């Protein structure tokens, strides 16, 4: 079984982004970029399935600018066998990415797609579900446990109120939540090895997919900042202020 793992290049999760003064977006100049953390979890899970003998091959795919090659190399350093970059400088929205992945999935005859539940830049959380719908496949979002066999995958999901376990007939799409696994650290020898793994570059046009944006961003603004409050001296003052100033407790 081939597993496809989409990986996105995003602003590193430790960076607090700043909104540009012209309102056109956030300032990305000289900002540290990294693989979306949920996608790292997806790569890890796919590589573990290969190590367990369930999967034969793990293919990482990224959609975006040439710099996404770095993200693919990171995925290969974690253990993905090869990379596919769908290269474009267009801004890609979830439906466009889902259509690109659909084309790759068909080309590669993948039976399982494991992707992050959301990217930490756009926070949309749509691509996996859209891909599953376009392919007519079942999905298991927010996975915290994945048991894959050859014809089915059993997934425990983190849902409102608790956990839910689903059994999906393959082919299927799984999206990863935080507690699915702890991604491995990449070692220097594996980084070197990853440089020699195959990476092909294709274009949306070659895949026959239009990536035109459907939604336009009118402006990006800073959220209202909370006023820093006050430090209280002790518990008695806290209770007094909550009762008499904030009036949130009786």
């Amino acid at each position: 079984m081939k597993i496809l793992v989409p990986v996105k290049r995003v602003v590193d999760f430790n960076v607090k982004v700043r909104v540009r003064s012209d309102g056109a977006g956030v300032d990305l100049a000289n900002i540290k970029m990294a693989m979306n953390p949920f996608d790292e979890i997806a790569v890890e899970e796919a590589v573990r399935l290969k190590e367990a003998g369930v999967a034969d091959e793990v293919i990482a795919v990224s959609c975006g600018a040439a710099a996404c090659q770095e993200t693919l190399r990171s995925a290969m350093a974690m253990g993905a066998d090869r990379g596919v970059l769908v290269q474009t400088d267009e801004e890609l929205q979830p439906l466009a990415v889902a259509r690109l992945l659909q084309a790759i999935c068909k080309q590669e005859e993948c039976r399982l797609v494991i992707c992050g539940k959301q990217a930490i830049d756009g926070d949309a959380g749509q691509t996996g579900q859209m891909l599953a719908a376009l392919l007519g496949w079942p999905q298991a979002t927010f996975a915290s446990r994945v048991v894959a066999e050859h014809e089915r995958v059993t997934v425990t999901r983190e849902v409102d109120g608790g956990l839910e376990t689903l059994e999906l007939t393959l082919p299927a799409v799984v999206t990863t939540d935080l507690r699915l696994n702890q991604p491995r650290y990449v070692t220097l020898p594996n980084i070197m090895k990853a440089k020699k793994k195959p990476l092909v570059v294709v274009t949306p046009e070659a895949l026959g997919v239009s990536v035109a944006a459907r939604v336009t961003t009118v402006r990006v603004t800073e959220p209202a900042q909370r006023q820093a409050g006050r430090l209280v001296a002790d518990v008695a003052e806290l209770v007094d202020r909550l009762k008499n100033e904030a009036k949130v407790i009786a």
Partner: protein
Amino acid sequence: MTILVLAEHDHQSLKAATFNAVAAATALGDDIHLLVAGADCQSVAQQAASLAGVSQVLLVDALQYRDQLAENLAALILAHAEGYDYILAAASSVGKSTLPRVAALLGVAQISDVIAIEDAQTFVRPIYAGNALATVRSADPVKVLTIRSTAFDAVAIGASTPIKELDAGPDLGLVRLVGREVVQSERPDLTAADVVVSGGRGLGSGENYHQVLEPLADRLGAALGASRAAVDAGFAPNDYQVGQTGKIVAPQLYVAVGISGAIQHLAGMKDSKVIVAVNKDPEAPIFQIADYGLEADLFTAVPDLVRELG
């Protein structure tokens, strides 16, 4: 403008978030249809009929909706999508799983976590863990939106709306529910509670989490929440997590105990009306957004707080 809202329920009653999703719909138009899909969910449809602002309740009663799974729900919405200008659901685990499928099959964008509606095609949503707000415009013929519950005040009840039964959609049979572990709790629902008491890594253990926080939550009638660090460490179950990738809450009072305040956590609670932070580290970022900060050892401060509250 005709709007379809997917009702979320447990076959007994509507989830609170549905009241907020309907409220968002009222900002878009006045022909609002509330879709109740389930197996044996008449009582939910009755309750749905009482929501103010709803012009029609659509009831689909069939076994394939018993488990509220995204594949069949999306196929059902798709089968009835014609004529709707908007399709809405709460940004809950069901809504977030279902609506992207609907949008993809309609060939339109989906807009996630809408927190404000500027006009018929312009919406505001948080990006980058809420560190920026994007105002986006969609020219799609059908706009598919998930609604962040905390941003819209729940609609009232008291109406008496007609209920219309609809035909079921296809049963795709791609997925089987094996089991659910629902955390049973006497406490209010985390996302709808007026008061949330939340614990972080500072509590040190699951035992401490419960011993320290439960008396305070009991006294305040609060829901319990947790930071990602506390959930990862096993102090609290996963569905207690508040933050960018967990629950988004905006209670009247949020009490953060032993939580340092990573940006991912702040993203989930910074719209609370009043924030109280108890932390022994004066440098903790949580103090920069707390209305009232108490720099103290939580193991003495929290029991003192319970006593002081009486």
